[in-house]
């Protein structure tokens, strides 16, 4: 009984943590970095390393990591663009893809235009 309860907790707890951390998902732009957060997940991308930003749909791979309806976190392998570090509320539709020298990040800001305008203004000052 105790073992099964602990097993259930072991499996369920990570999902519970992720569920509780969802409201904390946010993207922060400061003078040097773009910071993506969701609970314990935190990606920091120096603005100077960003080469390209596009908006597109991604092709989901059968070998995905944490990808649930309305949620994509951590590194997710995609069939078309390869591995993307996701911190987004969508796994494949309308993803803002941020390409840097080393890797790619996927986000879904609520105010896309505001985000890009803010990003441009900061990059323009560099």
């Amino acid at each position, binding site marked *: 009984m105790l073992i099964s309860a602990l097993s259930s907790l072991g499996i369920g707890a990570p999902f519970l943590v992720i569920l509780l951390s969802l409201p904390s998902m946010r993207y922060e732009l400061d003078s040097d970095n773009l910071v993506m957060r969701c609970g314990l997940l935190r990606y920091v991308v120096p603005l100077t390393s*960003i080469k390209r*930003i596009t908006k597109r749909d991604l092709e989901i791979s*059968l070998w995905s990591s944490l990808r649930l309806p309305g949620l994509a976190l951590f590194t997710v392998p995609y*069939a078309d663009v390869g591995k993307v570090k996701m911190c987004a509320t969508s796994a494949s539709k309308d993803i803002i893809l941020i390409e840097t020298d080393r890797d790619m990040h996927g986000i879904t800001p609520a105010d896309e235009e505001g985000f890009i305008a803010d990003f441009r203004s900061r990059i323009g000052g560099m």
Partner: protein
Amino acid sequence: MEQSKTLLTVLAAAGVLIPFPLLYAQVLTAVSATPDLDTLAITFVNLLEEGKFEDAAESFNKQMAEALPPRELEAAWNGLTGRVGEFKGIIEVKVTEEKGYRVVYVTCDFAKTSINIKIVFDDDGKIAGLWFVPATEGLHAIYIAALIATATSVLLWGGLVYWLSRRERMYLALMLVTLPFSTIVNLCVKKPIYEFLLSSLNIPEWSVTSPWWFLMFVLFLSPITEEAVKLSPLVAKKVRRMVGRSSALWVGMAFGMGFGIGEIWYLAWGFSMVPELGGYPFYYFGGFVAERIAVVFIHGIMTAVAATGFTKGRNGLLVGYVGALFLHAFTNMGAMLYQIGFWDETLASFYLFLPTVVAFFIFEHLRKKGLADQKHAETVLFSRSD
């Protein structure tokens, strides 16, 4: 455990060519009513049970005696009791008329299941036809299992193809083309070739003691014939035009999966004639359902490999076809090794996971290649060259 072994034996036969055993002989002549047919039938069954095959064969009419001499009757009876266990007794005798013939069904209890011995009499009271059939009433449970396997495959794999191909209904429609191909290739190609080779080379049924080249022949007979027939729609110009670098995967998947679904029903039909599989509930065939669902996907991948090769011309098609052959043989190997007694049933059951995982890797690889050739709509919001 014994039941699962029996089922596994049957499932093992699914992957490779095993002609279904001839359990009956039928030489019918026009008959009319003859009294005491039930008594004659009971006497005949009792003679079989007592091992008096010479006496039992005296009940045959001329044509039947030629078709099923005492030695073969003995082999048929021993084959039956070998599969369904010791004869326990007669449960019921039913006299009926079917298409103008007088037929007696002697329902017998065996150690593992019940069997209907169907005996057809001619107008002289001689036996003109004999079958050993499962004593099941209504729909054989294997057909319910086949329906479950089909529905799950269509939803799972058909849904996957539909979803990942950007909701192209055409690929689902293409699955219909190859639905009958499994039955056609099994009955019209594989079975005659296999039987011709057995009879012309005087080789008994295959086993671990069979010559290695014969085992290789059995292993590759299904891949060679089935992969060819799955690709046969490519002879149509309209179909060839559909196969492009980004669509070859989906066209191949559709043809292969259609074939796989047809194969579910061909096998179900074959299993429904195996007496010892009668009388079980549909969930008894859970292994059949799971195996078939996986095989439908693998069939799709095999054909997709060949179809992808086709986009590179004739040489590419040959390379793709050979690749599909080896993947097919690799998939069938577990069942074959079990069939010849080299592997136990557990190992053979788990083996199918391996080709399934390999098929998933190939699927993703082919999909990536197809996507690389496709242009994706994207909006550039920022570029360092801006």
